[in-house]
């Protein structure tokens, strides 16, 4: 990846953050914190990594993405809109009656959503099912799933992890968005999950630790995952909750609170300034 490609990804991620702020502001609810921490990962997956066709979202051979931490959909919706799955204006109707964009991902109603999620711990199992289906059909498509670091407290995550390694699902990549915060406080204070790398290793995963906001590291990890055979890969991505909006960064209160008008304007101004800066330098 050259610097201009990285810049394009940074612009896409900043626009995804802008979309998450726009959506949650109009909805007067939703989860900006985790949407912002995961935005770079969404941007890379949909721009560079995944073999997809936004004009044909149900294409049988496409790569799959399951947002196991379903509440962070606002920035995923923004990326899907920017990739052409649906109109950007849908974000202004997020979570409202009759909206295409539900509070948590709905595979039946939203083009580009591969699995309905929202109840934590369940998406990773569905991703295992998709990866296993690819194996049975001798298809090359890969399945990606993003989990929260609070989410790994769910027992089902570890049932799925055992299933993935037992069935040698090397076409499955589990990414953990380690922003370190969950609703009730810091993950380590609420129900410590570390050492997470050793946990995934002992469950049979090939583990890679990265900075989840560094596109070169994201790229390198996902490229490496393609070469891993006979076992699934877990990418533990260290991130900042609320990334990109100064007053939201590392603040647990922004897990599930929408910005008011003043906060919306400030967040939008910051993100727009970042986009202008990046575009000006292209």
């Amino acid at each position: 990846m050259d610097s201009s490609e990285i810049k394009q990804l940074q612009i896409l991620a900043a626009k995804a953050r802008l979309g998450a702020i726009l959506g949650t502001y109009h909805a007067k609810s939703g989860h900006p914190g985790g949407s912002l921490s995961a935005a770079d990962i969404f941007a890379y997956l949909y721009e560079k990594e995944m073999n997809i066709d936004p004009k044909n979202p149900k294409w049988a051979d496409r790569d799959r993405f399951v947002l196991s931490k379903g509440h962070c959909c606002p920035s995923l919706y923004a990326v899907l809109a920017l990739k052409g799955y649906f109109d950007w204006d849908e974000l202004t109707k997020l979570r409202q009656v009759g909206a295409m964009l539900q509070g948590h991902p709905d595979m039946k109603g939203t083009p580009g959503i591969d699995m309905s999620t929202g109840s934590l711990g369940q998406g990773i199992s569905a991703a295992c099912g998709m990866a296993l289906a690819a194996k049975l059909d001798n298809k090359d498509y890969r399945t990606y799933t993003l989990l929260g670091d609070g989410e790994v407290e769910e027992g089902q995550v570890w049932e799925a992890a055992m299933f993935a390694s037992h069935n040698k699902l090397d076409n499955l990549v589990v990414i953990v968005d380690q922003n370190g915060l969950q609703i009730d406080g810091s993950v380590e204070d609420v129900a410590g999950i570390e050492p997470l790398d050793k946990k995934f290793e002992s469950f049979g995963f090939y583990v890679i630790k990265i900075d989840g906001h560094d596109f070169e590291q994201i790229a390198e990890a996902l490229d490496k995952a393609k070469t891993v055979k006979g076992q699934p890969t877990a990418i533990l991505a260290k991130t900042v909750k609320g990334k990109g909006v100064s007053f939201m960064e590392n603040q647990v209160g922004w897990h599930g609170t929408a910005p008011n008008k003043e906060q919306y304007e400030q967040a939008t101004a910051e993100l727009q300034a970042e986009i202008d800066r990046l575009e000006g330098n292209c």
Partner: protein
Amino acid sequence: MSQVIKKATRESFGEALCELAEENKDIIVFDADLAAATKTGIFKKQYPDRFFDCGIAEGNMIGVAAGMAAAGKIPVAASFAMFATGRAFEQIRNSVAYPKLNVKIAGSHAGISTGEDGATHQCIEDIAIMRAIPNMMVLNPADHWEMKAATKAAIEYNGPVYIRLGRLAIDSFNDPENYSFELGKGITLHEGDDITVIATGLVVNEALKAVKELEAEGINARLINIHTIKPIDRDIIIKAAKETGRIVTVEEHNVIGGLGDAVCEVVSAECPVKVTKLGVQDRFGYSGPALELLDKFELTQPHIAKAVRDIVKEA
């Protein structure tokens, strides 16, 4: 009447899956370490490449099945009714039913006839739990032939289905030559205008023997077999309420939320008549041989006959 086959519906289910899988390559079977008991082991032996044991992890099994269905397969996930619908309730609700994925959930060892394992394994709530979930179809076949037909219909139907299987070997009463199965359609097994008995699953044959016993006494009870509890056959129930004026329901399930309540929901809205619910009277089971337990819980021929007789005499 053809020869009576004495077989547990779990076994008929396992056999049916094998027969269907020969033609339909999309059928994939999952179990949670109970393949020998749920009889998906029959499938495992014949199609080892299309069988996956998920281990004792029902929640993940349902989630994996949902992902498989999202990728175009027809997954069948089996466990005991207790763990399939109890432990994995929320996975069924959110990962299967909400996106209306084509997953078939088989709950074996349903009801008190699970027997010696006792209360922890005798699921008497599964019909209520599954019936309460939008998009979910609920089947409770009554004998070997009905289970085979229901399994075929469930596989051919595109959407979530819960199918209830029994552990106890029971006599078949349907005649395969004249039997036809249609999802959502009740079957009148015995004509009569004095009262209607509506039964489901393993106790249908007991109800059939009971109405025949009553016929010899001059009581003409209609018997309806409801194999599809959801969507329920409203027409056949309303017609029975209008023509006979009195209903007795029989099920091997808690009287809260099961067939009896499903029937009450229909008649209370369309044609209110008195409904007497025979079943497990809101209490837990206990260990013992299945036949003894069915007798203790008053779900056998003499108990059903007595209950119906008493109601008719009192009227």
